[in-house]
């Protein structure tokens, strides 16, 4: 365990750095008071790419390897994915995904 003051300096530096990351482009684009059209076009792809890169590895990978096709997380994720075709309702999608996860875990 490192010294107390060092822990606080680490926390302070991480806090400042993280705020700078969060504010980076909000500050930059505010400074130049515009977003170049070409960049705005590229930014239109960010939500789809980010959401896919957030969701899919959490469903398909555990501890550095592919979960098997009978893995409860993969089955639950697949059930939730099918549900998104039927409804936009977030609670329905989560309920189906978690429910199938629990059932598959219990049966596995």
């Amino acid at each position, binding site marked *: *365990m490192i010294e107390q003051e060092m*822990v606080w300096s680490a926390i302070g530096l*991480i806090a400042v750095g993280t705020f700078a990351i969060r504010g980076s482009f909000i500050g930059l684009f505010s400074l130049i008071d515009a977003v170049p059209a070409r960049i705005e076009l590229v930014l239109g792809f960010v939500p*789809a790419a*980010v959401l*896919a*890169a957030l969701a899919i*590895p959490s469903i398909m990978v555990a501890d550095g390897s592919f979960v098997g096709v009978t893995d*409860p997380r993969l089955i639950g994720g697949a059930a939730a994915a099918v549900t998104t075709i039927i409804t936009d309702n977030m609670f329905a999608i989560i309920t189906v995904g978690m429910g199938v996860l629990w059932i598959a875990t219990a049966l596995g």
Partner: protein
Amino acid sequence: MGATAVVADVRQGVRDVSPILVGIAPFGLIAGAAGIEAGLSAAQTMGLSVFVFAGASQLAAIELIGQDAGVGLIVITALIINARMLMYSASIAPHILGYRNQLKLLMTYVLTDQAYALSIPRFQRTDLSDAHKTRYYLGAALTLWVVWQVTTAIGIVVGAAVPPALQLDFAIPLVFLALLSKSIDTSGRQVAAIVGAIVAVLWALLDLRYNLGLLVGATVGVLAGTVWDAVGSDGGWR
């Protein structure tokens, strides 16, 4: 704008964030319990949640502090994990350019994966007012903030008592999956999502340490979507 509309907008953000809270609450408990277990004081553990407010980087910092790592390594590791938020900043910036500075600072401080993911579809809509978008975003983001602080504090005091068998953390990727299904409305965005997912999965298989798969995967996905659209609109091979 009446007070009822304000309340309705905020409430909508709070309601939409509630499924995410199911997954966030156990995570917050762990952030609190892990800090104490690693030897941080209660104030330091709470300080991470209040001043940093980014779970994955907090857990990495706690682990490294417990291992006697140097301050430089701890800080760099945490910031690499948080570098993904550069994308959120860039993505949300065009929509809030005209906002007051104090508001932008507040929105910056509470910017998280979940707040970004929930509100970006609304920020992109042209039929909603700036005021509505702001209230929706703050409703979701500040709810996450409060729940994160409260669960960290509970984790510090009583430890993380949620049975791991419930696998409540799985609610978070499910929310992202649900939001993803709404954001892939053009072929370019579908390409961005597929490529982003493949690269992020490959990265997760190769490297466990820095959570960089999200940043790398999303960046490659965005480039792929951009190229796909450019090639298509130039009357190329598609």
